[in-house]
């Protein structure tokens, strides 16, 4: 039976734990060509912008959300639309579960 036939709004789909580190944030921002200093420059992120540490990119967390959905969905369908909103900056390197 297709997963889509039983799921309803509000159901928890799939848990996946991500443990980002500074190397991953460097590689991600290099892949984008994103030079925003809050993502790799600790003295700038803490001293100038007032964050406790460097900040995980919002779109990276958005990607993790899509991974949780796509991995749960498997071959039962195709991702047609997704929306997410950050409620605040998340500093490296907490455990994040989507």
């Amino acid at each position: 039976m297709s997963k889509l036939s039983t799921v309803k709004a509000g159901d928890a789909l799939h848990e996946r734990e991500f443990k980002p580190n500074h190397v991953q944030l460097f590689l991600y921002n290099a892949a984008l060509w994103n030079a925003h200093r809050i993502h790799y420059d600790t003295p700038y992120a803490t001293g100038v912008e007032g964050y406790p540490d460097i900040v995980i990119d919002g779109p990276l967390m958005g990607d993790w959300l899509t991974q949780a959905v796509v991995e749960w969905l498997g071959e039962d369908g195709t991702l047609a639309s997704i929306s997410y909103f950050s409620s605040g900056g998340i500093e490296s390197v907490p455990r994040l579960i989507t």
Partner: protein
Amino acid sequence: MTALLTPELLSHIGNASSPREELVTRRDIRKYSISTDQRLKKYLEGDEAPPMFHIALFWDVVEMDQLKPDGIPVDALVPKFPLERAMAGGSVIDYHRKIYPGDELVATRILSNMFEKSGRQGPLIFCEVTMKIETAAGEPVITQKITRIMR
């Protein structure tokens, strides 16, 4: 409430960027997939792009002297706001077609909305940009509304 967003700033709503073309390569898909911790083989080997790959494909590639002190490039589409510290807000993404190596894609960005709200630590400006991605032949690929917050 329009204390920060003057009529002049609001007049920029509806501005559009010139279309940008990019070629999708297997190498770029692989680099993106590894950096985002993908687990599916089709993404890690670059046979198909993960759903958020277009973010990397169409991130502005600018020279270093075009970066502001915070490392963000000057975006000609968006006016200078009275609040300058930027943070990611969110996205609404509609997928029309998957992306594969060899695809030639075209993206157009439109400044679709801006408004302000009061946050816990002061005023916030929300700036919405809608990006439409199509194939070179005009087939819809992705539509994304991106919200950026200035504080």
